[in-house]
Every structure is written in structure tokens, then in C-alpha cells.
């Protein structure tokens, strides 16, 4: 049975799409058959991050409307096996997503895939609600600042009240906190919330802490999910997060200030 995971946040620009791309790539690298769906109809980005924007023929909305089959719309990833991408439509808006349409596609995908990653749009409106409705688990992407934390809190409330699991009275949606853009130096200066503060406010399980890193930006611009950059701290942090998602117990890294050695200072790190 496939597991449906929504990557959501409420707030925009916190790293949902980056996270969706990396988590999906990480799962596929570990041999799980994975599909990642862009729910951000009208503002599609996932194809850029995954470098498949030139291969989009049919999209999610085409499939919902029966204008294309799933096989036609699914794009095979170039970096790893077992990974497929379903792009969002850029010319439509979020009303094109219907509950029945989304459900039909997810049910069909569930027959062949182990993991279905839903990259949610920002906000709490229709698009975001469609992305989270069928989720079994949720990765709540949060930046260490108050407004992002509050929006995450809001989306957690919606997960508890508007998801299919909540409506049917099933076990609640599994909640995971992923803290992104974490900068221990700025935490020390009091310019950012510490991991512990965010954990305390949101009171959910910590899936991972992704350090604020230039490698994330580089990876996005090159269209390679940052998890594939195994030398970068952010890539390693995402890799740990995927392991934890699969049930491994791993210690959290990159929470403290990294002391730069002599060579790093000389040659850059």
C-alpha cells in the first residue's frame, strides 16, 4: 500500500518544493518506487527544481480532466531510477483540482508506487487543502521565525480537521517537523528561533533540520535536488531526514556552529 506524504507549510517560500524534490529523490535512491506531484497549479516550480521543465507534455490537470492518461503525464526522472514526476498545469488555476479527480489519480498511483509525495502550494485555501486531504503523513516545512511557526501551527490544525483521515475518524495524519534555513550563528545572536523553541511551540516530532546553505540555492539553480550533493551539509541533512522517515533512528546534525578549519578558511568550504 502506497504511503501518501504531503509536504506543506502554510507560509510560502520556506522550502516546500526543495524538500519535496529532495525527499522524493532520497526515497527513490533507497529503492522505493516514488512519484512526486506538484499541486501548485498555476505556479509550477517542481519541474524546474527537478530539471524536467523541457519534458512536460501533459500535466496533472490534463489527467484529472481525462485529456491524457497517467502514463503519458508521468515524467521519468533523469537522476535516479524509481522516480516519476507529475507536473502542475501552469495555465490553469487551483479550482481545476477536484476532490474526486485527485482521489482517482492517487488511487491509481497507489497501485504501483510505494510513496506518493504531494508538493503543496502555499496558503490554506483550496489548492493546499487538496494536497493534504488524502495524506497519510505530513512533512511540515518551517523556517525558524515566528510567522512561519504560526502558519505551520495553522496548517497542523487543518490537517487534524480537514484531511480524509480526520473526516473518516481514522488514525490522525502523521506529523513531521522539518526545520529549514537553520543558521546556528543567528540563533546564538537571538535573530532566529532555536530548534527547541520551535519544537516546544508546535509539539510534533522533528524529522530534520536543514542548515541554511549556499548549496541549496546552487542545487535549485542547476535543477539537481540538493540531496544528490552528498558533500553539502544540506544534502546530508536531507539524507538523514529520509532515513528517519523510513523509521531509522539518527541523531540530528548541523545544530551547532561548525568551526571552520585552517584549510576551509583558506580555500572556502
Amino acid at each position, binding site marked *: 500500500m502506497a504511503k501518501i506524504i504531503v509536504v506543506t507549510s502554510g507560509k510560502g517560500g520556506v522550502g516546500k518544493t526543495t524538500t519535496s524534490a529532495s525527499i522524493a529523490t532520497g526515497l527513490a535512491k533507497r529503492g522505493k518506487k516514488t512519484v512526486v506531484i506538484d499541486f501548485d497549479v498555476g505556479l509550477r516550480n517542481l519541474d524546474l527544481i527537478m530539471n524536467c521543465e523541457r519534458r512536460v507534455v501533459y500535466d496533472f490537470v490534463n489527467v484529472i480532466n481525462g485529456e491524457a492518461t497517467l502514463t503519458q503525464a508521468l515524467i521519468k526522472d533523469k537522476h535516479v531510477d524509481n522516480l516519476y514526476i507529475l507536473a502542475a498545469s501552469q495555465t490553469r488555476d487551483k479550482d481545476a483540482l477536484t476532490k474526486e479527480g485527485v482521489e482517482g489519480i492517487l488511487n491509481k498511483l497507489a497501485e504501483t508506487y510505494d510513496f506518493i509525495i504531494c508538493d503543496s502550494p502555499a496558503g490554506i485555501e483550496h489548492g493546499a487543502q487538496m494536497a493534504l486531504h488524502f495524506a497519510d503523513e505530513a512533512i511540515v516545512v518551517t523556517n525558524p521565525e515566528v510567522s512561519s511557526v504560526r502558519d505551520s501551527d495553522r496548517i497542523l490544525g487543518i490537517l*487534524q480537521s480537514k484531511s480524509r483521515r480526520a473526516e473518516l475518524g481514522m488514525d490522525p495524519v502523521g506529523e513531521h517537523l522539518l526545520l529549514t534555513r537553520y543558521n546556528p550563528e543567528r540563533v546564538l545572536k537571538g535573530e532566529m528561533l532555536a530548534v527547541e523553541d520551535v519544537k516546544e511551540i508546535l509539539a510534533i516530532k522533528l524529522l530534520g533540520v536543514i542548515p541554511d546553505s549556499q548549496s541549496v540555492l546552487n542545487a535549485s539553480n542547476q535543477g539537481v535536488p540538493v540531496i544528490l550533493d552528498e558533500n553539502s551539509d544540506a544534502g546530508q541533512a536531507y539524507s538523514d531526514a529520509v532515513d528517519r522517515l523510513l523509521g531509522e533512528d539518527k541523531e540530528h546534525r548541523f545544530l551547532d556552529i561548525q568551526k571552520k578549519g585552517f584549510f576551509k578558511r583558506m580555500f572556502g568550504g
Partner: protein
Amino acid sequence: MLLSVKRIHENMHASTSLSENYVQLKGSLVPMTVMELFQFDSAKIESSLAQIISQAPGFFEGAPIIIALEKVADEDIVIDFAKLLESCAALRIKPVAVRGGTLIQQLAAKKSGLAVVPSNKGRQDPKTVPIEPFANESATQEAPATKPVLEEVSSPQESPDIAPKAEPEQMEESPQEAEMVTTKIIYQPVRSGQQVYARGGDLIILAAVSPGAEILADGNIHVYGPLRGRALAGVRGNTEARIFCQSLEAELVSIAGQYKISEDLQKSGWKSSSQVCLIDDKLTITPLSK
């Protein structure tokens, strides 16, 4: 959906043992809203009632109401019940009885189809409970003054059990039924944007209440996690309602319409276990642990 625990009481045995009987009269305690009149001016009453109801539209919709006459200043005043009922009907509340008042007033009420319930006295005075407030108490902000006060009380409608064939088993159950008050228990965090309301009873939250969340109860509120949102106890006017919390970090606390906002709360008991109650009509924060 939020988990809530409600005790649902059903009189199961009634269908079997009393199948030959058609009706039974039993004593029961029902929470009722009381509208206290201070003076009578039908136009002014209607406008201030409308104001109260507009603060919580829906709470009072179709609610049965007892009109209390104990606090009417001028005893000889003639109350036009027909007019009063008209105003109430327009605001969609339903007076069912009067309480207190003079014999003449009661007679007038009966003529308008209202019942008369006995006046209840000897309610516990909150002032008798010794409580030491925090040293630097800040001024309470009062909600806009309103003429009629809507107060939530239990209206005892005690009548002896006059079931034709009262079985001993039923006799035992009746008092229990009377004490039944619904308490809502929430096990999960109340998140920003969520609202939880315990109608007619207490609210117990076993987790955190986030900023931007709102918890309301007709009775008391207990929060066994940090209280960071808004907490409103006694929303239908019960001035004896209290709020108890393990860590007071609220955006707003209110009891029966009197409130304090976060800014004022910082001065007394911030982030400590506290209780909030009304003492001499003044919202007071007192520490729970000493």
C-alpha cells in the same frame, strides 16, 4: 476533527419496562440562561439585548430564557410582558418563565403565557473564598456595560417523581441524571485558527493552546499545557467561572465578558501556573502554586 468526550446519557430501560405507559414526569436540572432586568423600558431593553446577542450570534439562538425580576429597581413598575416577548422573538430568544418579582408582575407574566419559577437564593458568594491576588495587579478592562445581564445558571425545576409505577431502580438514577454536566476534554493541541467551545459545561485541554487559537466554555476552563491563545470562560455570563492553567501565556483571558489582554497579563503570573477569576467583579489573576 478534534477529539471530544461527551457523556451521552440515554434512558435505556424506559423503552422496555414502561412500554405500556405513555408519559412520565421527572425532576431534572437543566442549565438555563437568565435575563436579569434592572429597569423596564422596552425600547432600551431591546437595543441592549441586541448588543449582547450581537457579540455572540448563534449562542443564544432559540435559547430558552428565564426572566429574572429580583433586581428590578422599582418594585411597582408595570412590565409589559407582551412587548418584552415581542422583542425577544425578534432577537430569536425564547423566554419561558419569570423568576422573582411581585405578585402583580408574576400575574402579568402568567397572562402572557410565561411560567413562574421559584426565586433561587443562597448561591455561594465568590467573595467568601479567600484568595490573595498578585501584588502588582493591573486594572481590569471592562466589557461595554450592558443593561440586562445574561447569566448562566442551573435552574432547579425540582418536582417530585410522579411516575405512576416508580421502580426502585429508577429512583436511584434520577439524582444522577440531575447532576450530569457535559465536560469537553481535548487531548490534542488546539492550533492557531481553531476554536473549541464547551457548551453548557467545562472545558479541559490536556495539551497546548497555540497563539491564534480560541477556547470557550460556558463553565470553567482548565489547560494542562501552555495557554498561548485566547481563553474565554463563562461566555454566557457565568461570573463564577474560572480559568486554570499551567502556564499563563495567553493573548486574552476573559470571564463573563471581563477581559485582560496579553499586555496586561505580563505583569502578573506570566508563564506561571495561575487561575483567573472574578473577585468583586474584577478580573483577578492568582498563582496556583505557593
